[in-house]
């Protein structure tokens, strides 16, 4: 039981480090390029901005959920 918990914790910590690196890259690449464009959209096309905001946040959530699940599976060597 303790061995299993330690394995899960270690996998989670490794996942967190890999995930942090991915997120760090995400901050400085994707958001940097998206920022100016979304800013202009928010000023000039509010309705388009509203729809795009929802699509972006849902799309990102689905991708992140898949990334974290895949990372966890890969690190634990089996599905949850």
């Amino acid at each position, binding site marked *: 039981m303790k061995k299993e918990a330690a394995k899960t914790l270690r996998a989670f910590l490794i996942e967190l480090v890999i995930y942090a690196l991915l997120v760090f890259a995400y901050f400085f690449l994707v958001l940097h390029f998206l920022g100016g464009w979304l800013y202009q959209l928010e000023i000039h096309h*509010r309705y388009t901005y509203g729809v795009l905001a929802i699509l972006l946040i849902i799309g990102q959530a689905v991708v992140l959920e898949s990334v974290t699940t895949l990372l966890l599976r890969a690190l634990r060597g089996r599905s949850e």
Partner: protein
Amino acid sequence: MFFPISGAHISPIYLAIIGFLIGILGGFFGVGGSFIAGPALRAVGLDWNFAVGTDLAHIVGKSVVAAKRHRALGNVDLKLGLIMAIGTIGGSECGAQLIQALKRAGNVNLVVSVVSIVVYLSISLFMVWESRKTLSQNNRSGDAAKNKKADSSAFGHVTRRIQGFKIWPMVHLDVSGVRISLWIILLVSVVGGFFSGFLGGGAGYIRMPSMVYVLGIPTHLAVGTDLFEIIISASYGTFTHAIKGNVDILIALVMNTGAAVGAQIGAISTQYFAGPKIRLAFVPLPLIGAVIVIYTLWTGHKL
């Protein structure tokens, strides 16, 4: 990092950590976490209207992650979630319109702060009373839940009376094992939606307890269904706030990077706790929100 839409300078690490913490709470309790996110965003200089709108956008993303996980655990009643989404959207629009009116009147911060404090304190006091009473009843009767998903409530007699109102049309919720009038479900969701639009977030702090105490939904299912319903209603809330200029989607996207991990941890953790214990553990959350808002009003600091 500069966020041009709201004109704020905020550390992305700060946002990701806040998202992570709120993600855990959201996945575990089925709440949006606006009682933490609102003050946390205010603490770094966002106005209430931006904090409310941006938080709603962040909640959509976090709820997608947590609801997906809860669905895998069998904790989502899709029929109930879809019905509630209709009422929540109507109520949410009323709340958002009230925010706009208060913005025009120039006293949005004071009114939202006072209402927040009253709502948060009321929920906490009621839930601490109910869950402690239920736990002591369970201990006395000696049938403390062997099955973690077994649920009971000291408020159950009132819930059964509410379920006894046979106002047509009646809805049978197979997954939750409840038969109740459609109008009661809609009333609960309209009230929750109003607070969602007015105070921000998914209003899970109102709706999750309402689903348990008014509709009689088991706590685990209330958590999962609430998250599913929040995806729909918070998406609508995000759109209405976005066209009013209250959403900085860049901030929400950064917060969601942390929330994606936290929400999964929270959702998985629910299977290790019985309903009354989840409800008792819920109590400090709105209290924390109330304390932060009181501090803001008392000191005048922009929290």
